[in-house]
């Protein structure tokens, strides 16, 4: 199906560069929210042309069943999830899923997970020989017992994961940082020095919900990752804290956490997001991408900003 051009030729330039890649728009669909890349095409009006990249669900070396239900639950201004990295394994993703994706319409990135340094490295090696254009490293998944956030909360371990993957692939690596880090800027620095080409800030916060009738935790895994507008102020602050070290090394940030409106997108851009992640916002509105792009464009026209990249980090001191 042909998609009409999004904007008039005179409209602002919404493309952005990220870890050496050129993204057609700054919007990136976040890992775990959009399956293995194709699911949102079910909805009439969705177009891959609206997004710069789609990040596939967190993938491990071997298949994983994931956690028992309930896995998701709405909480005030957000939601909890504990999927437990359900995925068919890296080999299957490469052999059965990636060949069917329309790589001419947008880019697809992998989201690599592991419970040991070797597993992270092996997943990187497998994806190295595939059409994904970048690999995001999930060292901050709160929903699996081994690995995941345990790597992310220890800055030295985080850097070791990056180094192990760096040795296994020449694809751009994007490290996803946990907001639960005591000193996120320091973790960012170590990951950059270990070879990370970009940073995803932030992953979910850990939380829980309680069913007072059953007197049980609502989520099967007991705790889950909190996402959505509830975490947005934390996300903005963590990006702000990470921005200086990232800029010093010329490393871009994929800002995320509660971006659900065009106004949110502008805030994430101002604080320094070279790309803008959409996750929970898609659950609120499956056609969010088109609306955010329109809002960005209107804002840029109104403020006479020609390129998205000029908007990034424009935040002034109060």
């Amino acid at each position: 199906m042909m998609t009409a051009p999004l904007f008039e030729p005179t409209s602002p330039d919404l493309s952005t560069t990220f870890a050496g890649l050129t993204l057609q728009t700054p919007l990136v669909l976040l890992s775990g929210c959009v399956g293995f890349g194709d699911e949102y095409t079910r909805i009439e009006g969705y177009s891959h042309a609206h997004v710069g990249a789609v990040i596939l669900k967190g993938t491990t070396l071997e298949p994983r069943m994931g956690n028992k239900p309930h896995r998701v639950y709405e909480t005030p201004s957000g939601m909890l999830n504990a999927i437990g990295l359900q995925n068919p394994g890296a080999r299957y993703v490469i052999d059965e899923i990636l060949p069917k994706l329309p790589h001419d319409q947008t880019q697809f990135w992998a989201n690599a997970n592991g419970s040991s340094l070797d597993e992270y490295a092996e997943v990187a090696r497998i994806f190295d020989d595939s059409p994904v254009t970048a690999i995001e490293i999930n060292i901050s998944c709160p929903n699996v017992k081994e690995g995941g956030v345990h790597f992310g909360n220890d800055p030295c371990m985080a850097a070791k994961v990056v180094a192990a993957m760096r040795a296994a692939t020449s694809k751009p690596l994007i490290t996803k940082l946990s907001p639960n880090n005591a000193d996120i800027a320091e973790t960012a620095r170590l990951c950059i020095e270990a070879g990370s080409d970009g940073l995803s800030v932030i992953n979910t916060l850990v939380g829980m919900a309680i069913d007072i009738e059953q007197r049980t935790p609502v989520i099967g895994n007991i705790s889950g990752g909190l996402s959505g507008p509830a975490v947005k102020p934390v996300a903005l602050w963590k990006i702000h804290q990470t921005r200086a070290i990232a800029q010093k090394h010329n490393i871009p940030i994929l800002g995320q956490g509660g971006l659900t409106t065009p106004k949110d997108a502008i805030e994430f851009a101002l604080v320094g997001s070279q790309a803008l992640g959409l996750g929970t916002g898609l659950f609120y509105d499956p056609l969010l991408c088109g609306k955010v792009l329109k809002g960005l464009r209107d804002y840029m026209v109104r403020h006479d900003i020609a390129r998205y990249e000029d908007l990034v980090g424009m935040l002034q001191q109060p």
Partner: protein
Amino acid sequence: MTNAHHATIVEEIATILANVQHPGDQFVMRVHAPKIAQKALPGQFVHIQVSPERPMRRPISIMLTNPEQGTVDLLIKAIGEGTERLRQRKVDEQLPMMGPIGHPFDLADPSKRYILIGGGVGIPPMIFVADHLQGQAETILFAGSEVPFPFALKPSTFLLPGIDSSVKMTIASLESRDIPCRLASKANMHGCFDGYVADLARSYLQALPQEERQRCVLLSCGPHPMLQSVAKLAHDLNIPAQLSLEEHMACAIGGCAGCVVETLEQGKRYYRRICVDGPVFDLNILPEFAA
């Protein structure tokens, strides 16, 4: 490159045309959502943003559509914050709604007799099946509820084998379209079977001659204990069954794997997504309902 499922779901801003309250926190809502009304099949559902303050959507089965008038009817029970907010929504207000979603009931074989068993807010998809199959295949509906049925009722003129003549109440709109139906309740309702709906269906099925029973297929939606009784009925009488399942949902488009049920297929265990791989599943692949 496009897949078969490409653009099968639409996002519509539906307008509420009616919201009729019934006892037991139930309400029947009619919305104008012409694209969804046009495409929907029995067993499919819509995913509704009940209010901007609770923006995560709620899955609700489609009870009936009128493609000419572009309307969709829903039957909902307020059980928590989301459904309670939906209950309070007024005529002419707008509801963002995506649909139709999910793998519908398999109704392809007109030589079958479809036995529909619905409980509580599992009744709506059964009404849609009955409506769809009218004039196409033999259909009988058994509905159970512990709160008053949110439908006009009347005594039926159809006789059904295995069912006492005192159990005569039916849903008036089905009776007028020649669809046989009987009701069950433990809440002492006049003309209804005093017991569980699966037991009512069992009396009927057991009274059928063997060759008639072998043509039957069970379709069911309702609370978990009821589905368990329906599964037992299917196992005992060796009748195939399709069950419509529920789980909390986030995306309802297959993206988050939040809504899963465990399946056993060719000896392998999977977690399948209820939103797009279901909500209707063949009983045979559901270990939690195994014999």
